[in-house]
């Protein structure tokens, strides 16, 4: 009985880590540029399709596709940032939401046109499909891989933000953009790079998500809600907040699906609305 729950906890945490990788970029860009990017999930989807294509058509091994998934999403995001996003930095929340919803819609149709509407299967290498057994309970090797990857990414992001020059520039821009501009920082360029890295991480998350939740053209819309919950509840530009929220979200979701499947996502949405009304700036927000 306990073993079952430990396994669920493990799966939930792994799922949460996946959500964290998917969401972290959104959190930083929203906090930094105040830009409501509802198309973040579409970048994740791009990463997923890059991996699928490379594995199915070119026979690449799964791990080798991940850097390309990162790059693909990053490049796509930079192009969109240059062409569309930057025109709306001063626009209202509503206009930003609508533009990016428009991008999501186009991405759904484009993915359906190119890849069809069915789920895309991938074949993981054998060592990732194994189950590791320790005493009474067992867990999937792939989930362990997810957790380890997410922890590494978290460490890199946190250390990068705290100890590198670029990280310091990003923090300056998040804290006070006008001041940063006044200090002679090239805010536009810093944002573009941050945006690219954040979207790249989403692409990476999208690729890693295929095994867990599948991949179809609606991915960008389906998981957007989870990403937004992580960001909204975690607090903008708060890595720590996003990490804890994602972990909790993953665990709650897995547990509720196991113990109360009939309730579905209802509880999840209810909790999200309640938390947002209670703390509109996020539960873990600094203010």
């Amino acid at each position: 009985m306990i073993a079952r729950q430990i396994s669920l906890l493990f799966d939930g945490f792994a799922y949460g880590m996946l959500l964290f990788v998917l969401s972290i970029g959104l959190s930083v860009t929203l906090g930094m540029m105040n830009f409501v990017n509802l198309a973040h999930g579409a970048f994740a989807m791009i990463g997923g399709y890059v991996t699928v294509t490379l594995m199915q058509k070119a026979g690449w091994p799964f791990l080798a596709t991940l850097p390309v998934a990162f790059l693909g999403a990053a490049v796509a995001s930079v192009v969109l940032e240059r062409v569309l996003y930057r025109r709306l930095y001063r626009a209202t929340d509503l206009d930003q939401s609508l533009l990016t919803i428009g991008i999501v819609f186009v991405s759904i149709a484009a993915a359906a046109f190119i890849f069809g509407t069915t789920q895309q299967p991938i074949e993981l290498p054998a060592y990732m499909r194994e189950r590791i057994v320790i005493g009474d309970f067992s867990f999937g090797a792939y989930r362990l891989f997810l957790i380890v990857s997410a922890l590494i990414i978290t460490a890199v992001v946190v250390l990068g933000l705290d100890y590198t020059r670029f990280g310091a520039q990003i923090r300056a821009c998040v804290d006070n953009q006008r001041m940063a501009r006044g200090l002679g920082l090239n805010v536009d360029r810093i944002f573009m790079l941050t945006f690219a890295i954040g979207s790249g991480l989403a692409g990476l998350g999208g690729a890693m998500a295929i095994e867990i939740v599948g991949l179809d053209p609606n991915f960008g819309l389906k998981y957007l809600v989870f990403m937004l919950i992580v960001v909204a509840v975690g607090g903008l530009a708060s890595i720590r907040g996003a990490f804890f929220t994602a972990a909790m979200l993953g665990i709650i979701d897995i547990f509720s699906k196991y113990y109360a499947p009939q309730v579905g996502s209802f509880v999840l949405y209810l909790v999200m609305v309640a938390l947002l009304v209670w703390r509109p700036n996020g539960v873990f927000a600094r203010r």
Partner: protein
Amino acid sequence: MTDTATPLYNPQDLMRAQVRWRMLETVFWVSALLPFFVAETYLVLCTQIAIAALFALSLDLLVGYSGIVSLGHAVYFGIGAYTAGLLAKYGWGEPLSGLLLAGLVAMLFGYLISFIMVRITHFALIMVTIGLCLLFEEFGNQAHDITGGHDGLQGVRMWRLFGTFRWDLYGFTAYAYSLVVVFLCFLVIRRIINSPFGLSLRGMRENARRMPAIGAPSKQRLQIVYTISATFAGIAGGLLAQTTQFVALDALSFQRSAEVLVMLVLGGAGRLYGGIIGSIIFLVARDQLASNNPQYWYFWLGLLLILVIIFLPNGILGGIAHLLSRRKKS
């Protein structure tokens, strides 16, 4: 620019000119009757347009006139639709009272939810409206026994309108009924917008910070407009349920919330006729483009949205107004 030398303003005339019923409006509403004579096969589409226009108008009270974002307005549309549908399914198929009840139930929900809405702003508000919409949609799905879940609400049977007019296959009755209801609602909304209350809504949109400094109880006003807006959305939903004699779960969905926002922004928010024009263009385009393959409709929809936001930030009507004022100047 010619008569500034001796300005003889009559301030009351200025205000009257603002709210005057224009010739073009008469032309517009009279031409709404044309489908009865020239486009009988499109009456069903026209009914949908009329309903969508009312839904967009209700949202315009919030987005265009009060400056509050809502990405979850389908909640009230859906509540109205299910109210009207369930009433008819369980034995009360009288259209007018059913529609009234649909509006009242949506009004009640709007009032209750407004207590949440006035507490939050910006990103959190967008999130909460999306969250509530998903919450209600999921509830509608889970309450399968009542709503029919994803299969939709079957067995809605409407009685004859005024006990006389049958709901014919071509949709004559449905369109006539919808058009009259929508027109009456339009008149009420028009009056609201041109009232002192409407002016205070625009004040909140233009500068929410100044409002308390001129003695306006903004939160109370927001709650009222939220409730009013929910009521009209509920009536629109009720109309859809009654005229199609069916309610799909989709009535509550995030997609529908996004769609109505697109219609409004497309036509031009805060311009009274923006939502109406937007819903006409949107639904006619969908009728033409989505008939082959509904998947690709999303492509056109998305593209349209991107183009409008980038090139026509004030919608089609805003663009036209801009062109006209430029021609006047030159």
